[in-house]
């Protein structure tokens, strides 16, 4: 099994305490680290999907549209 690679990120202790209180009970998160990883993945995904470059050139578009029209999709 490959050892999982982690790095340390510092957060204020007061924030850590708030997060510990937030996740205690039945949230399903085993640790503040698990929760922070979950939330940050969500944030990163939001940014990645909002900044997607245009995938098509104008000649791509024409060629694809012609095929879609020929197949009856457009």
């Amino acid at each position, binding site marked *: 099994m*490959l050892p*999982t690679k982690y790095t340390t990120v510092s957060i204020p202790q007061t924030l850590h305490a708030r997060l510990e209180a937030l996740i205690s009970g039945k949230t*399903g998160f085993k640790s503040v680290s698990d929760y922070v990883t979950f939330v940050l*993945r*969500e944030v990163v*995904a939001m940014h990645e999907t909002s900044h997607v470059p245009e995938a*098509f050139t104008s000649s791509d578009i024409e060629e694809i549209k012609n095929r*879609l029209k020929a*197949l009856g*999709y457009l």
Partner: protein
Amino acid sequence: MQIGQSADLSVFAGFTPEQTITIGKEMRNLVANIANGVFSPLEGFMGESDYLSVIDQMRLESDVPWTIPVLLPISDQVRLTTRDEALLADQQGTPVAVIECGETFEISKKEYAMKVFGTEDGAHPGVSKVYEGSSRVMSGKLKAVARNDYGKFADRTLSPEETRLLFRERGWNTIVAFQTRNAPHINHEYLQKSALALVDGLFVNPVLGKKKSGDFTDEVILATYQALIDNYYPKGSVVLSVLHYEMQYAGPKEAIMHAIMRKNFGCTHITIGRDHAGVGTYYGPYAAQEIFKEFPDLGITPFFFREFYYCKKCGGIATERTCPHGEDERLNFSGTKLRKMFADGQMPPKEFMRPEVAQVIAQSKAPFVE
């Protein structure tokens, strides 16, 4: 990411038998899917660190969600080394792709089976395939890919590039994907329409590929869906396109892969029902919904549905969330019962299957795989 598919066959010339790896039809479709961007961000077959990260963490080394390895098994006779170029060819010798070879490594089949399928039982079809294959695999980046021949399904096989542009041209911002490997009955239709009510468009994406005895044939799946859409869906509300992909029956982990693939097609949502991508009783009925909690960054939103059924008391299609009545009020038809009905020349009741869909099946000479 999309690798250009080459119509220029000269790029595939000049490879010796020692530089050629023979692959089967399902692997040929996998190569085409990688090239078309269905498996984006993959650009080829995984190396060892990605493989281990996927089976242990359900993520690529880059942290991108990924739950089932994409590997190129090779025989012990293959002696290619890193940075060699190799030809992937089908069993008739037709070129499929050129790859830049990466590392060769061994996988533990039992470890793969347990971590991906949750079982080492050789009766599980996905596990069986792993056990039958080589434990020696090679990573490799695709350099050139020949145009894949989809035969009679070519006109209903859209690439992610094509579906993304199609959705944009139709003005769809939200699109829900429906994955299936069966002809539709009314429960499927209600699930699809429940989702369609919340989005701009529906992407019906049947999986065509290796079959088990008793499955509907690919031709019948496509024809029945066309009949359903033509008769029961608002014009322009559905895109029907097939996906050439070999089912792994990995339950929850495959549900995530299905979501990733449909995200790559441009979908914003996907329906996940009861026992999605499951087989037998290996997975809990809603385990494939639970797993989505692990992936807040999947990039596609699941719509979870409980099982639909016809309730005689309610007089319509319902789920346990909307219907208070017992199982004795439910009309259920197993695949076995349905096949027997058609074999006996009977039509299923309209509470289970639309007559236009049943007609397509009844008129087909051999609707089921022998």
